């Protein structure tokens, strides 16, 4: 089962390595990892999508919590939070008809064309992992040249914040 774990850490040097090293040595899986500044100065927000049953998730949260640089760890369940990932997809275009078809599909997925040449289109799309996977599947038919994904980030719904 997939879980999205949000880890707030002090942005001390090497902190990402500490978190990643812990996942590695305890054989916890990392499906995706995204890190960036949080709303608080000096605090970095790391979002890790991981796989495992409830006891694995419990161990992940407890073990990560023991890292001194970690301020807060929280599992954000999908049904009470908003999850998004951004993907850039570079697709082959052989003809004007193909280009038009792709642009229509991008429209339907509420994506954007961010780069265009005669041979290729680069599409920007945001959404849940499922939406991005579906979009990529659709684009496979045209020939995907390259993709880049940010990994999932997540915020809980409502007014609360993780770090109060």
């Amino acid at each position, binding site marked *: 089962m997939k879980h999205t774990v949000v880890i707030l850490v002090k942005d001390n*040097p090497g902190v990402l390595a500490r978190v990643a090293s812990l996942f590695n040595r305890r054989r916890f899986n990392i499906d995706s990892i995204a890190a960036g500044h949080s709303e608080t100065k000096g605090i970095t927000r790391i979002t890790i999508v991981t796989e495992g049953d409830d006891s694995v998730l419990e161990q992940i949260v407890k073990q990560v919590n023991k890292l001194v640089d970690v301020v807060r760890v929280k599992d954000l369940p999908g049904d009470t939070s908003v999850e998004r990932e951004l993907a850039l997809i570079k697709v082959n275009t052989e003809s004007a008809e193909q280009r038009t078809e792709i642009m229509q599909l991008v429209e339907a997925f509420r994506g954007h064309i961010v780069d265009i040449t005669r041979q290729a289109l680069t599409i920007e799309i945001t959404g849940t992992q499922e939406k991005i996977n579906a979009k990529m599947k659709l684009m496979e038919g045209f020939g995907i040249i390259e993709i880049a994904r940010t990994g999932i980030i997540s915020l809980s719904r409502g007014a609360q914040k993780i770090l109060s």
Partner: protein
Amino acid sequence: MKLIGTEIVVECLNREKVEVVFGIPGGAIMPLYDAIYQKASFTHILTKHEQGAMHAADGYARATGKVGVCIATSGPGATNLVTGLANAYLDSIPVVAFTGQVASPLIGTDAFQEVDITGITMPVTKNNYLVMNVNDLAATIKEAFSLAKNGRPGPVLIDLPKDIQQAQTEFYYSEKDKNSSYSFSSKRNLNQIKKAANAIQKAKRPVIYAGGGIITSGASQELWDFVQKTNIPVTTTLMGLGGFPENHPLSLEMLGMHGTYYANTAINEADLIIALGVRFDDRVTGTTGNFCSDATFIHVDIDPAEISKNVKVDIPIVGNLKTILAKLIQFVEPKQEQEWMDRIAHLKEKYPLQYVEDDLLRPQFILKQLYESTEGEGIIVTDVGQHQMWAAQYYKYIHPRSFITSGGLGTMGFGLPAALGAQIGCLEKRVFCIAGDGGFQMNIQELATVIGNKIPVVVLIMNNGYLGMVRQWQELFFEGRYSSTNLEGSPDFAQVVQAYGGKGVRVFNKNDFTRALNEALEEKRFCLIDCMIPPEENVFPMVVPGEPINKMIGVNC
């Protein structure tokens, strides 16, 4: 007060009331050694290998409960600490290690004697620091000491670039930790304690399974009081030896792979297991699926991550064992399950630890003799292997911190330097290093440190000419194929010791051993007794790997 980095380190150690540090100087740490020379109010013990310094600091910490401190230079000095750090990490021992580092502008250039020691030691320290600004130094040291000893203790490493050691700043030593967000998880849960008390009241066949947490939190008095009130039998792990007096009728002594048959049988028959400061290690549980599957589990530990890590527990209580046990005593009613106590007494009488009592100088005899001669008042420091298990089985531990051993990591070579540290920490006690002829040679160079500093440790070598524990497994599980376990070519340890200027004797029989031991006990100075034991003596009883823990071989042998 303006100080340079190294003066800050020394001043911080002085304020932490550090009595002794162990280490070896080298290029990148020379400024610190200069400050130690000029300003230290603590003793510095020069070991002969950095691993020896680390284990000595560890042994000191285990014997005294204080934070051990060691120092090494950059590069190879620092990497030589790694085994010792891992050793302290797995047994939750408070140690602060300082390492020199190349000057900060050179970091990352593969400079002479540069290694990324904070990167290397990340998985084997509670936390580590590379200090890049002298203004952070004092607060970092403060935090390191606080981290090492608080919560679940562990080793902390501070890496000091040479230029930071020499940079100057205003010295300020805060009473408050820099990292206040680090939580020690000591919140007591009254409801859980009441639940536990209720389960204890109902239990017909309860067993206490106590570990290193009893020693770390200083809860042996509370455990004693708890047992006085409830008459529940106690078994301890290797790390918990000494946490409950083994001469008590309700002591089942050690459980696990080489535990007593009565401990393993009793815990297997128990309907309630009260696990105190333990981590359900595989040497105790065997395959976890088989481990007391019908029993209810109460688990008290300071580290929430230990709860339900290996075995699912029913009543977890997270916090300091000493305070929780004190509270639990208030909530339990006096209790005496006579039928269960009779069963325990019967098991203890019917299946005692046994060995062949003949004329040969057997290791079990040696340990029993040592116990009787010291009346259990010595500090026993072991290395790792067969002798470690015999020492755990046949010496009866009465006091906490009287048994010092490498439990989690199983580090051969730990014994001698740890005994050095333990003796320096407890000058009024007699310290005995029990080692095998294999492991002893892994840090034999520390004889120079021990003898040179006139440390009155008594070393007993259980000399069987083999890497004995591996040989035992080869005999039992590899059809006797003794692959690379014969230690042919080992020296006469008595002569080795004499070359270092110490007293050493080699003994072949019981009489000579007893005489040598009595002499060693009379003289308060270093002595090594090289005991030539039967080469193929085995450690029994033993749980066969993969079997439940009450299926033991070598019972009633």
